[in-house]
């Protein structure tokens, strides 16, 4: 190679500085933006989350308020009416209670009428769908985080240690995989319901937390397998060996070097696990084994809709709207998950 002048080298250097490499995340963003369905889904979910979070602040009827005079009213356009009180809310948490107070000072006694109709006890369906969404989304999120925590640590440890530890840990996962958990969970929920008071007094576990834990503990298996595979392939990369040579502790290698590198695949599985967990919650609540009244979730609403089907009166709103809410959310979550997967790992496209 011929020797280059100082100027030429400097020019090359400044040129190289101008060219920016595309990071994994930037590439992914670019690909994600091209995916129309995933983008729409993302916006829908963001809006839905905001709406659910701020539901207590907005002028909707109290979700558990029974008005026998308004049984099974078809949807009608009665936008604004008067008359609700804080006593009509049940079991408000600290935050929701404050939000309801704020609502009273913002909107006074005004509330939105039952524009989506009412149910068998005259409760406003719109408000029940929104409050139910709070529960369903929360279950989906928290239970998925539980499964994430268990699955990622289990998979990372198993993959990192390798050898007989890995073998044993994965054998355990195999055995657990072959157990049809849903049946065991139904069984478990029955037994736990029986001991509710005992558990609450002795361990301070309330029904919801128990529910989160049970669902989360079922859905970690796939996550553990995926993370283990990824860690196994990362373990022998040079940068990990370099860290080992420099004397980094096991914990530090896991946290600093391995976890960030499995993050993308974890995010993808996270978004795909949330709808599955929500589906499971709806399934259990539908059977009467999940969320219990007066709490409301989309599963409970769907069950109520089916129970109300009869050939004499067609309460279509009661079947359709909860189904649509659950359906749209789950479809959006699936599209988002697929879109993220295609964006973060284009090799997996069309799988």
């Amino acid at each position, binding site marked *: 190679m011929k020797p280059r002048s100082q100027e030429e080298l400097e020019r090359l250097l400044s040129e190289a500085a101008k060219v920016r490499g595309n990071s994994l995340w930037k590439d992914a963003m670019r690909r994600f933006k091209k995916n129309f369905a995933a983008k729409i889904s993302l916006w829908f979910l963001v809006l839905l989350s905001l709406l659910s979070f701020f539901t207590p602040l907005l002028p909707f009827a109290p979700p558990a308020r029974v008005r026998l005079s308004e049984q099974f009213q078809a949807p009608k356009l009665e936008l604004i009416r008067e008359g609700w009180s804080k006593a009509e809310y049940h079991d408000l948490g600290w935050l929701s209670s404050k939000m309801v107070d704020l609502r009273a000072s913002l909107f006074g006694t005004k509330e939105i009428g039952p524009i989506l109709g009412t149910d068998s006890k005259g409760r406003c369906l719109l408000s029940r769908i929104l409050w139910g969404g709070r529960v369903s989304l929360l279950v989906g999120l928290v239970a998925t985080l539980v499964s994430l925590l268990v699955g990622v640590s289990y998979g990372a440890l198993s993959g990192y240690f390798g050898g007989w530890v890995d073998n044993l840990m994965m054998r355990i996962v195999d055995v657990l995989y072959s*157990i*049809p958990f849903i049946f065991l969970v*139904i069984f478990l929920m029955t*037994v736990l319901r029986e001991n509710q008071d005992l558990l609450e007094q002795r361990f301070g576990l309330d029904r919801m937390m128990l529910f989160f834990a049970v669902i989360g503990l079922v859905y970690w298996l796939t996550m553990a397998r995926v993370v283990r595979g990824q860690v196994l392939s990362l373990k022998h990369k040079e940068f990990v060996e370099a860290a080992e040579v420099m004397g980094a502790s096991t914990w530090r290698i896991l946290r600093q070097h391995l976890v960030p590198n499995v993050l993308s695949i974890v995010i993808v599985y996270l978004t795909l696990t949330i709808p599955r967990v929500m589906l499971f919650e709806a399934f259990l609540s539908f*059977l009467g084994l999940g969320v219990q009244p007066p709490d409301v979730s989309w599963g409970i609403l769907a069950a109520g809709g089916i129970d109300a089907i009869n*050939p004499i009166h067609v309460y279509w709103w009661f*079947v359709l709207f909860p*189904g649509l809410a659950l359906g749209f959310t789950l479809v959006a979550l699936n599209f988002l998950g697929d879109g993220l997967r295609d964006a973060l790992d284009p090799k997996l496209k*069309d*799988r």
Partner: protein
Amino acid sequence: MPPFLRFLFKRFLWMLATLWVVFTVSFFLMRAIPGGPFASERNAPPEVEANLRKKYGIDRPLFEQYLRTGVMLLQGDFGPSFKMEDYSVNEVIAEGLPKSASLGILALWIALLLGLPAGILGAIHRGKLTDNLLMFLATAGIALPNFVIASILILFFVILIPVFPPGGWGGFSHLILPAFCLGAPFAAYVARLTRTGMLEILGQDYIRTARAKGLSESKVILRHALKGGLLPVVSFLGPAIAGILTGSLVIERIFFIPGLGTHFVQSAINRDYTLAMGCVLLFTALVYAMNLLVDICYTVLDPRVGLEG
């Protein structure tokens, strides 16, 4: 021992181990409840309760009960039902299983008959309108819970246009709607898997060879591509059967079908522990057996894969 028998033997041992774990966990969960299964009988005199406890053998020490129940299960006897008097769990299962089985088998057929053509069409018309539409439907089918699909279909085809009977157990027409609702999500999965598998195969050299020697497109697809493209579907059948069993819990409740799923959910709600445990064990064994069957089919279809226990 020939390798095939050894494989079967090994898997059988694994199944026994799994069943034993399930049995032990559910047994001790059941017995962990204070007061026992008859605590909810209102105002039962102590003598009556003592007699009941004696009849069902729960007055003995815990470990003895565990062993006795275990031995009984090994003999294929699930014991008497706690809540349905005069019925043994075996009788309830014998009555419910055929109904659930016919529902499940029909659902599986529907899943395959809808899913396979949709997947093949999607792969052939990749990226075109047909493909996009079918895959959109498939995503919706995977995402929507079967009870939402069921409630909307009931609204249309039972109430508005009464084509199908509303529910219950009777002729074939009673089965169509529930089986469709049960099979729809799996049709969606099958469609996706078929499409992926076909796309992979259609890019292979031997397909190009088949086209180059002038075979018609339908022959290329049906004769050459389909066999390889179906492999992912075959390996999905195991989980699909497990999922159909689960889904039938809800579907049987909606359509008032007195099958095993209904009995199981009822037993869980009524705290009929022996029946619940019998169902859990039966479901586990069924899923295990189906997975084994699928694994064997897989090796027959794809000789590159060996049988491993």
